[in-house]
């Protein structure tokens, strides 16, 4: 069954998601990876997020470039280390690929967040990406913090409620 999730994602949505569920995400989502996520975590630490509203949001672990978007490995050190901090700050769904560690999975549970994997189908995602907007750290180029408006991004819940597919 096709389950549609629209951002912002409520706590109730998260409670109803389970490992193995296939979902289709629509709405606005943030994008960031190795270079920018530690900087966002630093802004959280300094209580200086400003106009960036992470509450009930999605972060897609991807670069944003003319080549399109597609998941990078969420278990890269700087990305995986950001997941607990971002979850505590309100991010509800982290979207990427690859196995993440058991400590990260338990932190997701603690902060009522989940991890989903998305097939690396850049050519297909292009048709489901409505718009993109640079949010912060433009000097990072394709690794800057972006916001996309998307329609029906297909993904599968890989870690939720302290359980995972790994």
């Amino acid at each position, binding site marked *: 069954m096709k389950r549609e999730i629209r951002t912002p994602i409520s706590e109730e949505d998260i409670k109803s998601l389970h490992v*193995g569920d*296939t979902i289709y995400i629509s709405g606005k989502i943030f994008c960031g990876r190795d*270079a920018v996520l530690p900087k966002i975590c630093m802004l959280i630490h300094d209580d200086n997020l400003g106009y960036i509203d992470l509450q009930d949001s999605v972060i897609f672990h*991807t*670069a944003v*470039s*003319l*080549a*399109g*978007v*597609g*998941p*990078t*490995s*969420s*278990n*890269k050190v700087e990305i995986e280390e950001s997941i607990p901090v971002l979850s505590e700050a309100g991010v509800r769904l982290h979207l*990427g*690929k*690859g*196995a993440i560690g058991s400590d990260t999975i338990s932190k997701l549970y603690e902060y009522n967040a989940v991890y989903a*994997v998305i*097939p*690396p*189908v*850049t*050519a*297909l995602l*292009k*048709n489901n990406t409505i718009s993109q907007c640079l949010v912060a750290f433009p*000097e*990072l*180029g*394709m*690794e800057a913090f972006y916001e996309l408006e998307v329609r029906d991004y*297909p993904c*599968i819940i*890989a870690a939720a409620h302290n359980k995972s*597919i*790994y």
Partner: protein
Amino acid sequence: MDDRIIKIVSNGLVTSGSSFLPDKKAAYERAISKETNPQAKWVLEKILENAIVAEKNQSPLCDDTGVPHLMLDIGPNCPISGDLLESIKEGISQGLRKLPGRPMSIKGDDAQRLDQSLGMEVDPGALEAAPILIRTIKENKIKLHIIMFGGGSAIRAKTYRVFHKHNVDNVIDEIISWATEGTKLLGCTPCTIAVGIGRSHYEATSMMFQALVDGTYDMQSNLEKRITDKMNASGVGSLGLGGNTTVLATFMKVGPQRASGVRIVSMRPCCCFEPRIATIEL
């Protein structure tokens, strides 16, 4: 520089970054028909659908468009000049702009390129290809193989020594152990496992590269099949979701070996799109 060479190399790069070869499409079709895990089957179908759309639009298969790696096959009476190599280089640049490639060339001196402190060039064409590998062939022609290597597979690849203890099983089991660990973390499965075995790290890695150029999904040697079957029994599956399609095939090339107890093995768990390859006659 030679405009004809520039144009066909540029077009070849776009083909390598946007298309599956027929044997790869057939391998996916076989995998889809055999896969019993519904989610893993859905992922395989999406990857093949993505490849068909990318080929039709001549657009990137993956947003990590990769770093160009080149190999020249040179026939007996075919001269190679500096001008030809410069024309190939320019063709690669133009192809990266046309695909378009992801702008990934890092600016600065040695230290700045290591810590990425000066950021990146905005021009996709500024990305340099890796050093060219050259070998001879019997046909009287020059062939250029273009392979685009992505970062995820590079993170999980490994080149290291293996003590064979005079038993091939020890070498194969070590490769399977590395590949199993790599595919779990990679995420972009099903993989093609590329293996080169040589007398040095340089030779092993160049053997791994040649294995990707020469390999075909239609035929597996006994050793390749053994690795493939064992990997598919691991249960990692497509996108790490389980099922029986962790790898599509293994491409292995065993080079000359040293009189020694050690073999140098290079293993790359190539992601679901790799090898992104095109071969063109110059």
